[in-house]
C-alpha cells in the first residue's frame, strides 16, 4: 500500500513539475517572444521583389531593437517560394485553409477578393486611417488593396501596362527613337514598318498561358481604350458581349491574322515571358506588349537577358486608346505586388508595425529605385535615391492613365475566358466567333444572372 502511495506521490510531483514547466514556456513565449513569418518570393524573382526582400532584411535589426526596448523579442522566419503567380496563389490558399499561412504575405491584387471572402486577410482600414503616411499613397496604389470599400494591404511597387520597344532598331527602321503611338492603329503601322525592315522579327502582343498576365497586357486595356468595360460597377454584373469587346478582338485579329505581325507560337510556347524578353534582347523582336516592371529583372545589368546599352536601347510607350471620339487618350492597366497580414496572425499589431516600417517614404523610394518599379507613394520624388534611377521617374505619368482590373472573386474565371478569346483569335476563328465563344463561356460559367450585354 505504501509502495502505491509512494508511486502516486512521485507521479503527481512529476505531473505538477511538467505542467509548471510548460506553463512557464507558454506564458514566456506569449508575453515576450514573437516570431513573424513572412511569405515572400525568392531571389529568382528579380526587380521589385528582390528590392522588397532586401528592404525587409535591412529593416529587421532596427525593428528587433525597437521592440526589445518594449520588452518583446521579435524574430523573423521566411517562407520563400518561386515567383510563379499561379503556383504561389495555390500555395497561399492551401496554407490559409490549413491554418499554416505566414503572418505577412505577398500577394497579387486579384487574389485579394477570394482570400478576403474566405476571411483570411486582416482588414487594415482602421489602421491605415490612423497612419499619416497613407495620405501619400496615390489613388491607383490605394485601388490595388481596396475590396468592397475596405483596405487590406500595402502595395510595395506599382507597374503599368506598356509597350517595350527597341530604340536602336526603331531608328534603323526609320521610326523615331522616342516613340509614343497616339492610338492602337499606330502600333500596327509601326510594327508593319519594322516587319518590312526586319522580316524575321516578331511583334508579339498578348501572352496566353499565364493567369492574369494576358488580360493585364492587352485585352482589358484594349476594351477600355475602345470605351468599353468588362465589369459594370453599378449593376455588379460582368459584360459578356459588347461592341468594344468585338473591336478589341478585331484589333488582335489584325495583329495575328490579317497583318501577321506576330506568330501565334510566341504567346503559346511554354514560357511566353522568357521567350519575349529573350527575343527582345537578341534582336528577334523590336516591340512587344508588357509592363513597366520588366526592365530590372529582364534587361538590367543582372537581368535574365541583359541589354548592352540599356538606356539607349530600351524604350517604353504608354498603351494608347483607340483614338475614337469620347474614348480615353491612354488606356493602361496598373498592378502591384501587395503585402497583407494574415487574419489569424497572433500579433497583428506587431506585424502592422513592421509593415509601416517597411513602407516608410524613404524605404519605398529605395525599392522603387533599386527595383525599377513605379512608386505607390507620391512623396517618393523628394527622396534623393529615387532620382538616381530615371526609369521610375520618367514612367510615373503612365499611372495617371491606368486603371486597376476588377478585384472580384469571379475574376479568375473571366480572365481564363479572356485568354480563350485570345486563343480563338490565334486559331483564326475570327473576331465574331471568338466573341460568341466568350459570351457562351460567360453564360455557362457564371450564369445569366451575373452577366449582361452592352449594345
Amino acid at each position, binding site marked *: 500500500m505504501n509502495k502505491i502511495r509512494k508511486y502516486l506521490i512521485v507521479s503527481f510531483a512529476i505531473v505538477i513539475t511538467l505542467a509548471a514547466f510548460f506553463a512557464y514556456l507558454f506564458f514566456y513565449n506569449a508575453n515576450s517572444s514573437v516570431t513573424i513569418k513572412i511569405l515572400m518570393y525568392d531571389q529568382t524573382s528579380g526587380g521589385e521583389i528582390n528590392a522588397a526582400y532586401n528592404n525587409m532584411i535591412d529593416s529587421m535589426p532596427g525593428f528587433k531593437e525597437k521592440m526589445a526596448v518594449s520588452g518583446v523579442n521579435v524574430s523573423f522566419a521566411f517562407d520563400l517560394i518561386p515567383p510563379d503567380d499561379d503556383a504561389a*496563389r495555390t500555395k497561399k490558399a492551401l496554407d490559409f485553409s490549413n491554418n499554416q499561412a505566414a503572418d505577412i504575405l505577398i500577394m497579387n491584387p486579384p487574389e485579394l477578393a477570394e482570400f478576403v471572402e474566405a476571411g483570411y486577410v486582416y482588414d487594415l482600414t482602421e489602421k491605415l486611417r490612423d497612419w499619416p503616411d497613407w495620405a501619400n499613397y496615390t489613388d491607383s496604389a490605394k485601388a490595388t488593396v481596396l475590396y468592397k470599400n475596405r483596405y487590406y494591404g500595402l502595395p510595395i511597387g506599382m507597374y503599368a501596362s506598356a509597350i517595350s520597344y527597341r530604340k536602336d532598331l526603331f531608328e534603323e527602321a526609320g521610326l523615331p527613337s522616342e516613340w509614343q503611338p497616339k492610338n492602337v492603329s499606330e502600333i500596327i503601322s509601326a510594327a508593319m514598318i519594322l516587319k518590312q525592315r526586319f522580316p524575321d522579327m516578331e511583334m508579339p502582343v498578348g501572352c496566353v498561358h499565364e*493567369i492574369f498576365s494576358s488580360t493585364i497586357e492587352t485585352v482589358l486595356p484594349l476594351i477600355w481604350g475602345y470605351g468599353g468595360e468588362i465589369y459594370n460597377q453599378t449593376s455588379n454584373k460582368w459584360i459578356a458581349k459588347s461592341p468594344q469587346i468585338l473591336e478589341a478582338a478585331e484589333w488582335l485579329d489584325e495583329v495575328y491574322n490579317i497583318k501577321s505581325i506576330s506568330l501565334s507560337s510566341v504567346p503559346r510556347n511554354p514560357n511566353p515571358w522568357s521567350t519575349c524578353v529573350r527575343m527582345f534582347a537578341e534582336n528577334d523582336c523590336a516591340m512587344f506588349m508588357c509592363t513597366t516592371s520588366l526592365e530590372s529583372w529582364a534587361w538590367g545589368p543582372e537581368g535574365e537577358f541583359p541589354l548592352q546599352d540599356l538606356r539607349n536601347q530600351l524604350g517604353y510607350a504608354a498603351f494608347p486608346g483607340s483614338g475614337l471620339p469620347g474614348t480615353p487618350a491612354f488606356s493602361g492597366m496598373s498592378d502591384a505586388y501587395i503585402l497583407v497580414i494574415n487574419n489569424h496572425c497572433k500579433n497583428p499589431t506587431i506585424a502592422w508595425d513592421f509593415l509601416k516600417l517597411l513602407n516608410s517614404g524613404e524605404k519605398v523610394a529605395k525599392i522603387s529605385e533599386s527595383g525599377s518599379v513605379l512608386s505607390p507613394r507620391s512623396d517618393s520624388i523628394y527622396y534623393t535615391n529615387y532620382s538616381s534611377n530615371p526609369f521610375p521617374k520618367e514612367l510615373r505619368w503612365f499611372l495617371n492613365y491606368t486603371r486597376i482590373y476588377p478585384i472580384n472573386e469571379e475574376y*479568375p474565371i473571366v480572365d481564363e475566358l479572356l485568354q480563350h478569346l485570345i486563343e480563338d483569335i490565334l486559331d483564326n476563328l475570327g473576331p465574331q466567333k471568338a466573341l460568341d465563344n466568350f459570351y457562351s463561356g460567360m453564360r455557362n460559367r457564371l450564369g445569366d444572372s451575373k452577366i449582361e450585354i452592352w449594345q
Partner: protein
Amino acid sequence: MKRLRKKTATGTLFQLPSYLILSLIVFLPSFWAIFMSMTNYAIAGANYNNLQFTFLSNYFRLFTDPEFGNSLLITLEFAIITTAVEVSLSLILAIVIRGLNRILQYLYYVVILAGTILPLSVSIYMFINVFHFKYGILAQTSFIPAVDWFSSYAFLTVILCEIWVNIGWIFFLYVTSIDGVPLQYFELAELDSLDLIQKIKNVYFPQIKGVIIVTLLFGLINGLQSFMIIMSLTNGGPRNLTEVISLFAYKQAFKLFDFGYGTTANMILFLLIVVLLVPLNRSINPFGRKGGEPRGEYQETV
C-alpha cells in the same frame, strides 16, 4: 478448437497495426475524397465559410459540363495512343537491339533510357529546348522546317514527350524478359526459318505475354493519370485541346478553388481506371498459370 481460436486471435492482433495504418493512409482519405465530392468545399472564396452537403449535384454538373466531356475524350485518346505506341515501339526496339553487338546495344540503352532516368522536370526542360519554335534544336537546324510544336501540334507534342519519358522502363522490362526466354526456342525458330513477324507471334509473344500485359496495364494507368508533362508543356491549351481529366480537376481545385468539383472529376478518373483496367486484367489473366508451369510452348508454324 480453443487453441486454434487463440492462434487466430493472436494473428489478428499482430495484423491490427497494419490494418490501422492502412485505414489511415488509404481508406480514410478515400472515404474523405468521396465525401468531399459530395460537397461544395472550397479552399478560398465565399464557399469556404459556407460548406454544404450537395450529394450528387457535382456529378450531375460534371456530366453536363462540355469542358469535362472534352477532357474525358482527350484523356482516353491520350492514354490509348501513348500506351499503344509505348508498348509496341519498346517491344520492337527490344527485339531489334537484342540482335546488335554489345557496344551498339549499350549506346541505344543510354539513348532510350535518357527520358526515363532523368528527373521529370529535366526531361521536360530538355524537351522544350528541343521543340521550342524559335530557340529549340529542331528550329535551329536548317533541314527541318520550323514547326509550331506547342500550338499547331500540341497534342502530338505532349504525346511524344510522354512516350519519350515512359518508353525506357517498358523497353527494359522487355529486354530483361526476352533475356529470360530459353535459347532453344530461338534456335528452333531459326531452324524453321521464321521471319521477324512469325518470331514475334510464335516465340516472343507467348513467352513474354505476362510482361506485355503488365506494361499495357501500367501504361494505361500512367496515360490516364498523366499530368505533369501536359501541365508543363501546354498547360492544357491551346483552347483546352490537351486538357486531360487530371488537369481539369487540378484547375477546378487549385486554380478556381472549387475543391468539391475538382474531387468529383478525380473520382470519375478513378472509376474510369477501374472500369477500363479490371476487365482487361481479368480477361487476360496474366498470373493465372500455376507455379512451375512453363510459360508457354513453342508453336510450330507448319
